């Protein structure tokens, strides 16, 4: 058995599949474990106790407390309470707490091994952070079988347990699904396409400025401000830390109360210690909506931006699945209803735990991520080579997937061979030459500029490791030069629950969008030894006989002839090609 581990920004939760359902291993209060750790001398306090002692909202280090330590991953060290600590160790402390507490859970004892896990990660977590997170899990004896993006896990979990799964999948076939994971710390968005037995990620987005804690903080701040103004509280009359902590909890309760009644009062006795004034303020739902509107608007703006980036209108989204604790908030629901229509917004009862459950189901179903789009090498004369094809299985724990491509340099005259790595922007079963591409990056190696074209051999090696990082290495044989690059922003798909076939992606109705403009690299590598691929000017330098216009197979093509002539000055006046002063032949 492999567990699902949602190592969330705000909360963390382990879930596993037993029989036909999942079991979530909550803490003693029946809630997920807050992803918070506090250091007091030699003591490490993690989870709810550390969370309750924290007054501030937001992510990162607050005194001797770290909230959402995974956001620190990627840094070498951070200072916590004046002590330099490794973010990996901090993350490991939280994981250790979650694991040890979950192991003590009577539902887990004897039923669950905790040594292997499918771990969910935010869509924005890059490769080095994934590697660091894997190390933190390894410190606790947990082998990460696979990382999976949180929204993808949520969608898988929802589809896997949907009451009428077949009908639902049929209804969503070749349709877009937007997963909105609106939790306490972050808003994560993923646009997916359900196609031919697979879930494919199209676009990812989100924000860490509109999390549920931000809502509580805004409410608290606004209530205190309004009451202070109405009651004439002096600026010096500052509440204690404990009072502020309690008021933050009160704000959360107020938020919940206003989801059920038109108005509610927030009350904290002796909040202002100097004057001994009780904080007592009645807030209506309308006022609450006004207070939190900017946050909700920002969240919706993020959604719009994501859809815009994919050239998709809200009407094209067939289902908006809302996960995370904020899904229960009426204001958020109503805004999503306005955007997509009530019938297309799905808020499951277990939305707060859907990600962990999805990870558990993926572990149970032994699902493996697959590459969502072709990764291509752009070659000379506009051709492209799919070096990693869509549908390629991603490596799991300890595995590495390798591909090696042998290439030639068509034009070594500038002493460099260029390797542009691109991916299709949209999901298509057979990407066409004219389809827009997104550049992942460019590699360049030094080549022997004196060598004839198509002589120096080049190699392009691609490796995808279990942290889903694409490492690309380009090598030249003669100059023995190497260039390396790593790409983290890959997109993945996964088989739909209960469907084995992961066939090719079919045509979708997304707009292609404009071609990229500006300067482009003249790519000079090819995968076959064909003189017709050599630029005409370069070919002339090495084989002038190819331009003798004699019949034969080794003669330059028309394209090569033009390329050659373009770089030749006018035979009469020696003006360059296109010079208006030339009245002989090439000039205007």
């Amino acid at each position, binding site marked *: 058995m492999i567990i699902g581990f949602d190592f969330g920004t705000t909360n963390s939760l382990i879930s596993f599949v037993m029989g036909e359902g999942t079991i979530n291993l909550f803490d003693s209060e*029946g809630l997920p474990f807050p992803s918070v750790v506090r250091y007091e001398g030699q003591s490490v306090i993690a989870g709810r106790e550390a969370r309750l002692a924290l007054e501030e909202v937001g992510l990162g280090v607050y005194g001797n407390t770290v909230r959402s330590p995974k956001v620190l991953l990627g840094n070498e060290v951070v200072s916590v309470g004046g002590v330099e600590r490794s973010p990996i160790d901090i993350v490991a402390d939280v994981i250790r707490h979650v694991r040890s507490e979950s192991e003590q859970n*009577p539902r887990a004892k004897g039923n669950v091994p905790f040594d292997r896990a499918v771990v969910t990660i935010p869509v924005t977590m890059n490769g080095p952070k994934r590697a660091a997170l894997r190390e933190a899990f390894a410190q606790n004896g947990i082998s990460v079988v696979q990382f999976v993006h949180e929204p993808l896990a949520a969608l898988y979990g929802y589809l896997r347990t949907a009451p009428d799964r077949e009908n639902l999948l049929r209804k969503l076939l070749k349709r877009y699904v937007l997963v909105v994971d609106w939790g306490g710390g972050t808003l994560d968005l993923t646009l997916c396409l359900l196609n031919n037995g697979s879930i494919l990620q199209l676009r990812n987005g989100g924000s860490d400025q509109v999390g549920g804690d931000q809502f509580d903080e805004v409410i608290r701040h606004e209530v205190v401000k309004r009451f202070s103004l109405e009651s004439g509280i002096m600026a010096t009359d500052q509440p204690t830390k404990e009072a502020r902590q309690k008021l933050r909890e009160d704000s959360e*309760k107020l938020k919940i109360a206003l989801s059920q009644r038109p108005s*509610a*009062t927030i009350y904290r*006795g002796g909040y202002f210690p100097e004057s001994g004034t009780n904080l007592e303020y009645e807030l209506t739902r309308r006022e609450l909506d006004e207070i939190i509107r900017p946050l909700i608007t920002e969240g919706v703006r993020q959604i719009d931006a994501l859809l815009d980036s994919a050239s998709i209108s809200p009407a094209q989204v067939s289902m908006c699945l809302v996960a995370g604790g904020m899904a229960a908030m009426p204001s958020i629901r109503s805004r999503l209803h306005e955007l997509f229509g009530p019938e297309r917004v799905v808020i499951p009862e277990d939305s707060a735990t859907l990600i962990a459950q999805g990870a558990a189901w993926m572990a149970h179903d032994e699902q493996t991520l697959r590459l969502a789009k072709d990764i291509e090498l752009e070659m000379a004369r506009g051709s492209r080579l799919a070096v990693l094809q869509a549908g390629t299985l991603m490596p799991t724990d300890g595995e590495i997937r390798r591909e090696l491509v042998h290439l030639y340099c068509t034009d070594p005259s500038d002493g460099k061979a260029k390797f542009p790595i691109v991916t299709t922007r949209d999901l298509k079963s057979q990407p066409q030459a004219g389809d827009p591409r997104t550049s992942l990056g460019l590699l360049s190696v030094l080549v022997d500029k004196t060598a004839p074209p198509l002589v120096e051999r080049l190699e392009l090696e691609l490796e995808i490791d279990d942290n889903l990082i694409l490492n690309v290495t380009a090598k030249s044989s003669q100059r023995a030069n190497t260039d390396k690059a790593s790409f983290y922003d890959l997109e993945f798909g996964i088989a739909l629950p209960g469907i084995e076939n992961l066939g090719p992606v079919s045509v979708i109705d997304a707009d292609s969008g404009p071609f990229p403009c500006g300067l482009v690299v003249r790519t000079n590598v090819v995968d076959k030894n064909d003189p017709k691929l050599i630029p005409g000017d370069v070919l002339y330098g090495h084989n002038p006989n190819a331009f003798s216009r004699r019949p034969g197979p080794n003669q330059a093509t028309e394209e090569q002839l033009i390329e050659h002539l373009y770089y030749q000055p006018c035979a009469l006046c020696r003006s360059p090609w296109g010079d208006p002063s030339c009245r002989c032949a090439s000039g205007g």
Partner: protein
Amino acid sequence: MSKQNENLESLPEGQRYVGPVDDGETLQPVNKSQLANENPSNVSVSEESIATPIPPKDSSGTWALLEAAYQSRGRKLSLKKTDFENLSISRSRWSEDVEVIERLTKTDTLLVLPHKFLAAMVQAEVVGSVREHLMNLMREAVIRHPAYRSRIIQEQLSSDQVTPNSKKIKESLSQIRTSEAGTGDEKMYKPIEVNKVAINFLSYLALDQLLRSKWTVERYIDEMFACVWSSKSLGHFATGAELGLAKDHVPLGLLAANYSQRMQLQSQELQTARRMGQHQASRASEAEVERDSGLVEILKLETDLIAKHEETSRLETLLALERDAHSADQLHHANDNELMRTRLLRQLKTQSELLSDGSHALGSGSLKTANEFMDRAKEAIDQEIEHLKSMGGFNQ
């Protein structure tokens, strides 16, 4: 018969002989009265035979009898029972008897006498010690005969399990040098003589085996047929002619009677065997039916067993699934209980805090807030009650 023997050499070996061979050419005419006067043992010969006078030399009469027999020169001996009854046999004179027989046998170049003498004894119904003594003397006669130099003949006589082979005997005899009695001139057997000696030896050997009860008469006939009597097949008519010309019908009759009896016996055995065969076939058929029936039963049992195994396996799988499902159900029930417990705990804690705050507000004179908090607490508790009721399947 003598005519046939004359042609023996020119015909295939072992296929022409119809009886023991005589050396008729060496016989001298003897008067019947002469024989009767000179033979004190009253040895009588057949009408064709001419007795040779044998001077009496012993009181027992044995020598005289033997002398007379050897004097017959191979002609058919016609001895009577009384000729033997007067003999006085004594073990103490055995060596003298042997000396006599050694002398006499050298005169019988073609080994004619031993089997004829044995035949005559049988016809004279000689029994007991006399017959045994004379048979032993005949054996000595063979042993001391020049033909005994043949290794094969030695082996035949010394073996307990006699298996005559006429071809080998003849080959062996062709290498033997012999001489006429008293002449001292040794010579090789002529081919025709080899045949005669071989046939005479085989005739003696077969009769000796029969008389010593080592062979049955059937074995005697079969061995004689194989080694001596065999002849090439003639046509029906020729066979009839040959048989019709036979002067002595008695041996033919005996032979035919024996074969007829044996055929009858074999026919009976065949019928018995057939009956047995039919019986066995019937039993085999019954056994086959029983076996088929058993096989069907075994097949049925095996099918039943496989079905039962499958059923057991199915039930075990079902049981394992049920056990797993039960275990999962138990865990889910426990989990549901835990979820409900923690939800109630959180609810009670929240409402307790709310009431506590309401109480504080009441104490501070904020009656409105206190009332609201109490209302909110009551609403929450009522909702929880409704929720718990609905979990139990009650609407109210």
